């Protein structure tokens, strides 16, 4: 008892320790709030996903905003990525006489990793921030309250359309990025590395399996789920006016990006163990 009170006295008489404990406590509290709030949002989404009314028009609107309007950005990035990878691998492998392996290495890298991860990061930046700022603005201007006060559900009208649109759009964008990236790699290989386009295509087809495409797309389904729900959750919990909206936007981009990078490692590990040929 006296030992415990001695410890308490030491802590209380030491402001840096007290400040550290307070800070740690606040961070733990905020993390637990996030876990609880996010889980609760996921449950509400699953609960309301299959209940009428269904807002198909809102899903289509979001598909346009999330999918169609991201196309150009994704295509340009994929073209550049594929081209740069072909260049890097080309000059790197040339030293060892391995130029002919470029189609296989580039194709596997793009389909399994670069396509899904880069597309998801781009979408997290463009769409995650867009959702967080839009929903956050609606929150601070009481529009979310208005949706509820008018007898409708923000989960149905705001969250579910954005989730479904992300789940549909991101794998399609990834598929597009894969093809554009391979096209870029093929063009650079042909012009810079003297690899014939027919050979590039033949080798790419020979070395790829349908699972390479499917696992890449499967990753983006997981990423889309988290990007859209994280953005919606943060938007719905925005406080503190316009500054709060800015903070929410930054938080979503940073958290989604970290999640994508860490998630990619674990998903790749799972696919290596279970799906990819050894």
């Amino acid at each position, binding site marked *: 008892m006296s030992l415990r009170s001695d410890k308490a006295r030491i802590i209380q008489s030491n402001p840096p320790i007290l400040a550290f404990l307070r800070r740690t406590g606040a961070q733990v509290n905020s993390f637990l709030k996030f876990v609880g709030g996010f889980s609760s949002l996921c449950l509400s989404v699953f609960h309301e996903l299959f209940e009428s*009314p269904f807002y198909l028009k809102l899903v289509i609107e979001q598909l346009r905003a999330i999918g169609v309007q991201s196309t150009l950005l994704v295509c340009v990035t994929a073209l550049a990525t594929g081209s740069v990878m072909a260049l890097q691998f080309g000059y790197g492998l040339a030293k060892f006489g391995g130029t002919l392996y470029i189609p296989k290495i580039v194709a596997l890298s793009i389909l399994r990793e670069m396509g899904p991860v880069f597309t998801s990061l781009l979408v997290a930046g463009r769409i995650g921030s867009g959702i967080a700022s839009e929903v956050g*603005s*609606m929150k601070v*201007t*009481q*529009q979310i*309250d*208005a*949706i*509820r*006060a*008018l*007898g*409708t*559900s923000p989960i149905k009208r705001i969250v579910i359309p954005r989730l479904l649109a992300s789940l549909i759009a991101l794998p399609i964008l990834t598929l597009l990025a894969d093809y554009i990236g391979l096209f870029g790699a093929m063009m650079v290989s042909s012009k810079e590395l003297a690899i014939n386009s027919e050979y590039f295509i033949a080798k790419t087809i020979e070395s790829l399996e349908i699972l390479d495409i499917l696992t890449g797309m499967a990753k983006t389904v997981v990423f889309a789920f988290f990007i859209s729900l994280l953005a919606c959750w943060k938007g719905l919990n925005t406080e503190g006016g316009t500054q709060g909206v800015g903070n929410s936007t930054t938080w979503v981009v940073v958290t989604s990006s970290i999640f994508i990078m860490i998630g990619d490692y674990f998903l790749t590990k799972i696919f290596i163990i279970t799906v990819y040929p050894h």
Partner: protein
Amino acid sequence: MTQNKMKYSIALNVKNLHKSFGNKTVHRGVSFELRSGEILGLFGGSGTGKSVILRSIIGLEKPDRGEIIFDDRNIVGLNESQLIQVRTQIGYVFQNGALFDSLSVEENLAYPLKEHTTLNAREIKLRVNQMLDLIDMTGTNALFPNELSGGMQKRAGLARATILDPKIILFDEPTAGLDPVNTKRLLDNIKNLKKSGITGIFVTHDIPSAFEIADRIAILYQGAIYVIDSVENIKQSEDPLVKSFVSDSIH
């Protein structure tokens, strides 16, 4: 008491409401009755929880304790899907209108009709136009909220909240931030609604407006209703707190 019950029916009964936000206690037992056909003005200093009472009535806040009886059932504790039915019968006029940015005026007003009625597109348009006429906003159908003045946004918010003919309307500081001309215009709109016999709670700092609109006044003080009485009795009250509150607010 029995005599009173014969004179009026109760539209809403708030009983012993308690609410805290973290360490801050806002309500320490708020109780009052809202009579059918009356507008109750609710006064109180800033941060005393006037808006929280309205938000609790419509289920946007969960009270820690207490009851809110509407249509013979306690609203407190209902889940979101159970609250939908309640929310179609209680209109909420937000302080800033809270119109949906991405929808035009017509779409904003049509929103509750599309969600909760079986009216067809033509009937909805007709009803929206009637409401726009009523609030002197004829022809603004295609405008978006950012193209409207503050007063027009609030009037459109009022029209949206009342378009389903709710049993009760909650006004959350509707005249805040409005110039005298727009305040008068909004009050005229509310008076027109009052002629049709609406029941409502009018939360405000604008005491003259509340005296103009309300039938009775309640004053929220230290987390509870300090007094609730007719406008005339409040004006003539000798109670020092009521007197200072009313005169300070007016001057």
